[in-house]
């Protein structure tokens, strides 16, 4: 399994958005996004993303491959690689939902929160359709749309 496909499947598993691998059209549109997200995360987590990805690949390499569901997720979360690199798993979730991620966990208050880094596909963030909003700064609707229940 190539790294991009593995990353896409791992992303679906963590985010709960299975459609990005189960729906052929969504998968086709998501692959280039996955490639870019993996590239940007690797730039920051070059030592920590590969073990997480390898852990997933190991689990997914059975024949037949296991379905992407909570049972597979539980197995993944029980691995040492996940426990050691959960920060990266959180950033995989962040990058898909917001097209943003953090390089480090937030230090305890009152220190300022770690800044977000750009994922490159802000308008494709998965959070916006889920909450029935739009990417902030990018509305494609007419004046007054906000008066109605979405």
């Amino acid at each position, binding site marked *: 399994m190539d790294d991009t496909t593995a990353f896409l499947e791992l992303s679906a598993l963590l*985010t709960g958005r299975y459609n990005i691998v189960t729906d052929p059209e969504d998968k086709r549109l998501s692959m280039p996004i996955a490639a870019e997200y993996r590239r940007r995360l690797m730039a920051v987590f070059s030592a920590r993303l590969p073990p997480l990805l390898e852990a997933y690949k190991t689990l997914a390499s059975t024949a037949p491959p296991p379905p992407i569901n909570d049972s597979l997720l539980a197995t993944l979360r029980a691995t040492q690689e996940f426990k050691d690199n959960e920060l990266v798993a959180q950033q995989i979730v962040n990058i898909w939902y917001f097209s943003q991620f953090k390089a480090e966990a937030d230090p305890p208050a009152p220190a300022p929160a770690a800044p*977000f880094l750009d994922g490159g596909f802000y308008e494709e963030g998965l959070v916006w359709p*889920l909450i029935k909003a*739009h990417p902030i700064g990018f509305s494609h609707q007419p004046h007054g749309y906000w008066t109605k229940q979405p």
Partner: protein
Amino acid sequence: MATSYDIIIVGSGVAGALCAWKLSQYGRYKILILEAGDNAITRGQRVEFHHTMDVQGNRGDMYAPYMDLESRIFAPVAEKAQRELNDQKNDPNNYYDYTSASVDAFKAGYNRMVGGSTWSWRGNTPRFIPSDFKLKSKFGRGRDWPLDYNELEPWYCSAEEELGVSGNHEEWDGLHGGYRSRAFPMRGIPLGYADQLIKKRIDGKTARGTKVRVVTTPQARNSADYDGRPACEGHSNCIPLCPIQAKYDATVHLRRLAKDPNVELRKAVVVTRLGKGKDGQVSEVYYKSWHSDEPQNEHSVSGKVVVLAAHAIETPKILLMSNGLGNKSGQVGRNLMDHIQFEVTASFPEPIYPFRGPQSISSIEAFRDGPFRNTRSGFRMTIGNDGWGRTGTPAKVIGDLLKEGKYGSALPPAIADQIPRMLRLGFSTEMLAEPANRVELSSKKDALGIPRPLITFDVGDYTRAALQEGFETSKELFKLMDAKVVGDQEMPKGKWNTAAHIMGTCIMGDDPADSVVNRWGRSHDVPNLWIVGSSVFSTSATANPTLTLAALSLRTAAAINREML
């Protein structure tokens, strides 16, 4: 390049732009605007700012769209002022320097750009109410303005027309005694789905012994096509940038001025001091041009009249660098004020779908005025349409869900349940004009060798008491809504947010002994020196300052014209 003008205006934010525009309409003045920033005012510039924001990775920061501007080096601003005092003091690169007497951080920032801080303001434009002008005589606290609401009312109408303010006349006419002689230029922004649900639950009810009304906030945001700009499309991005200019910013007036051959906008110049002639008037305006091959060299230009419009930190700095000019009262830089705010966050009993439409549409004005103002300030409340505002973003909700272990199939429904219920009530209090709160000149210099601001700041107990009351009021309102307060359950000690409304540092008054400018904005000491902007505010009140400063700027321009006739 001409070196002599009728009027020189320092600063091209909303105060300077409106003043320049009003004076240009008389058709008899050669006007020079000196501006520290150098950005363009075209649609292409707006698109570029939108793109910069897009890739910043930290949306919502008021500076995010402007991070690529070279002016950040030569005309720095307090980009990290929202940090706590010790964090700012321990950062050698912090723009604000602090005295040891400072009790609180001064968290307010501003833009030094062509068009000023209106690029990134929210756009809310409530008026001051009559009591706000008479804090001393009515409540025995603070100061009185040397003018009253009646005197400013016609100028409020003019300012609303110039900015393009939408609002509902029937909601605001007579509110706290503030009559309106004209309807708003546009009807109010339609209430969002969330506002309607909230209004249904609390409108007409009583909280803290006061009857509550949910009204549409007057805002410089088009509810219809106006002045060649479109109606709001609800990008929900008011701060830091409206992508389509449905929200007013000062480039509206600057673009009009660009067509006037008698008006010159000189960009990338930072004024360093004013020179005084033998007649005691301003004779020269000195500046450094950071585009030039030798940016440390000073140049000068002269004008019959000089107007300082560089916002309430840089304007007093210019005077303080001018060898005592205009400061016989000793008040230049003093009486520094901000609107000290906080917000209470909650989860509404049903989805209200924030992040759709402007960041805030409705407000509660009931708590702005009352006899309590003799012991604590009033506050103005806004209903946020931006989730939990500064307190918690949608990313925080998801981060908390992941900490609970909610990966996988549990995550999307949890997101879909929690984020659409996010709601905040913000409350904005009033500070008193205290001379000890001040801006001076630091020994630390910026890239052009100009002193940074040295701040002494203490929020004060008058304001702290209002923060406490605002928090309790918010809790009662949430209880009326059946909303569950999330996060802080009590007003945290020592914690507050800035509204970035900087005021008071060239205070207006009738008495030259304790004020910098007179009722028209003219320096008491220097006949050809005028000041516009929120630095002249005698009280901070609880209303966003832009409409009031816009009204005053237009009024001052008319006064300048009368003097020059």
